[in-house]
């Protein structure tokens, strides 16, 4: 433990110090070059460490995973197997089920978080306890998905009918004579998948709300006032003025939620581990990895990446449009 503490302190102090030393040293070297060259060389020294990390941790492994997805499972001597891993993915019920679940996740999570976030952002703007409301809705985002998983394991707790229900959800629906439902063990109609999505909605609505709320506050109040003077009701003001002005913000939040839903892992891993028809791509990949099926796991990861690329392209276009305005 002590040696670890020492390493931690060394790293915390040492790394920034080393970086400062590095920049100082390279600046000395750069000034030796002719002035025309200085401007060209210097940026690359400053960018060097970041590009090194990005290259090694994001670019290189992504290429490596793509290559690995065309190879067999053996970790020691992988053979080329062509498209076998992909064939497995697209002919396997569990994998296709995971893909389908991810589509459900994508639609439901995005619609609910962005929709609720929008409603709340517009509503809390009109009450005096706005900071409190925001804090409470936002709080779940600060805790880990594992802790959220525990919280909801309690919420969804199920006791056979006749026994007192200790789970909040079953107790509440019990008061009107419904249930009890085994929320996390019900594959029929994807009940369990929806139960998991509800947990993520609970976590991420605050995120959507905070961003949308910032945009709502950025709307010129005179615009709204002008619409009201023209005789528009509150609903019309929202639909004709507020909503269109929020468009770009809603697009950004939606893409973030789409990506979040595609990458969903922790909540599934802790609450059901993919049982009862709740499997998702990211959890499937970790499972294949733990079986030593590195070829298949890589193919699953590539499928995930392919699903994300269109969203990424959209995000980049959005970003460039924003930059050109600056």
């Amino acid at each position, binding site marked *: 433990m002590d040696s*670890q503490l020492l*390493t*931690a302190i060394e*790293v915390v102090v040492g*790394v920034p110090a080393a*970086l400062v030393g590095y*920049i100082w040293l390279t*600046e000395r070297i750069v000034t030796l070059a002719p002035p025309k060259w200085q*401007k060209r060389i*210097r*940026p690359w020294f*400053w*960018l060097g460490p*970041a590009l090194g*990390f*990005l290259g*090694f*941790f*994001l*670019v290189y*492994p*992504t290429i490596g*995973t793509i290559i690995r997805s065309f190879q067999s499972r053996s970790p020691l001597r992988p053979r080329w197997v062509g498209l076998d891993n992909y064939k497995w993915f697209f002919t396997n019920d569990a994998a296709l089920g995971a893909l389908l679940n991810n589509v459900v996740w994508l639609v439901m999570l995005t619609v609910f978080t962005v929709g609720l976030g929008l409603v709340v952002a517009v509503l809390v703007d009109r*009450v005096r306890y706005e*900071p409190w409301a925001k804090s*409470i*809705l*936002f*709080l779940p985002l*600060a805790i*880990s*998905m*594992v*802790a959220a*998983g*525990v*919280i909801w394991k*309690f919420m969804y707790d199920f006791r056979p009918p006749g026994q007192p229900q200790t*789970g*909040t959800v079953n107790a509440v629906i019990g008061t009107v004579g419904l249930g009890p439902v085994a929320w996390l063990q019900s594959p029929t109609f994807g009940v369990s998948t929806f139960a998991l999505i509800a947990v993520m909605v609970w976590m991420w*609505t605050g*995120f959507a709300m905070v*961003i949308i709320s910032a945009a709502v506050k950025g709307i010129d109040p005179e615009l709204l006032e002008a619409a009201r003077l023209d005789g528009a009701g509150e609903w019309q003001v929202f639909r004709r003025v507020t909503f269109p002005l929020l468009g770009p*913000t809603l697009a*950004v*939040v939606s893409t973030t939620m789409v*990506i*979040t839903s595609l*990458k969903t892992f*922790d909540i599934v891993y*802790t609450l059901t581990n993919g049982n009862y028809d709740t499997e998702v791509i990211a959890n499937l990949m970790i499972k294949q*990895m733990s079986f030593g099926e590195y070829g298949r796991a890589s193919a699953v*990861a*590539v499928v995930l*990446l392919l699903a994300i690329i269109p*969203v*990424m392209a959209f*995000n*980049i276009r959005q970003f460039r449009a924003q930059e050109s305005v*600056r």
Partner: protein
Amino acid sequence: MTATAPSRPLPHPLAVPATPRANRRPRRAGRIVLHLVVVGLMVLWAIPTIGLLVSSFRPSSELSASGWWTAFAPPYHFTMENYSQVINQSGIGRAFLNSLFIAIPATIIPIAVAAFAAYAFSWMEFPGRDVLFVVVVGLLVVPLQTTLIPILRAFAEWGITGEFLAVWLAHTGYGLPFAVYLLRNFMGSLPKSLFESAAIDGANHVTAFFRVALPLCVPAIAALAIFQFLFVWNDLLVALIYIGLAKPDRLPLTATMANLVNSLGGGWYLLAAAAFLSMLVPLLIFFTLQRYFIRGIIGGAVKG
């Protein structure tokens, strides 16, 4: 967020603008519905956490027999037993320290690395600058899952799987796109005249970075630090893959808890206390530094 504005003179009670009577009644009904909806959502959002908090202080025998809400009726049975048991037995105390060991360096390294890159992207001219920056932003959405296998193999070759070093490096790599993006946005929006006058005074880029850019970026760095710290503290996947497979006793809180969830079918009373211990640090940060946290989120809405 709660900063009180200097007290504004209250409008005279008689000065309330007269609204036509017909207009007032539907408005009041609307206000009531508005408050009902907002307060209803607040209650709905708070109940899960409150339920867990209450549960964590209830004796184990009662936890499995009745719901947490019954604790508010007599007889009032509350106990610290769950917490003391969790801290002493399940290795949670150890995991708490591991989490700190992992999160602090994994917050500082990426910020240090990103600050220099953000400065170069903001205030140095070089061919391909904008394209390169867009590529970095694009890397924001690369799923971690795509990178796990090759990195794990490289770490195994270097013999650092299971070491904290492995997670520090990995979190630095994964956190960088967001860090560079956020800091570049902030640094790039500083007034150009500052840097021009610094250059006229004979300051080179190193001086301009430390004397001008860095001090002005403190709010952005604070937001980023909170964000990255919470991200690492709450991370399960990275720790599970790069540490968990080799050295389970170095796992952070999240992973230890995930294992508890999977292994303790009936050990509920421990879980509630363990979960609350793991939330302690994030909640503390959230309530003390909420303003920076929210600023970070708004400043970097693209983070995936």
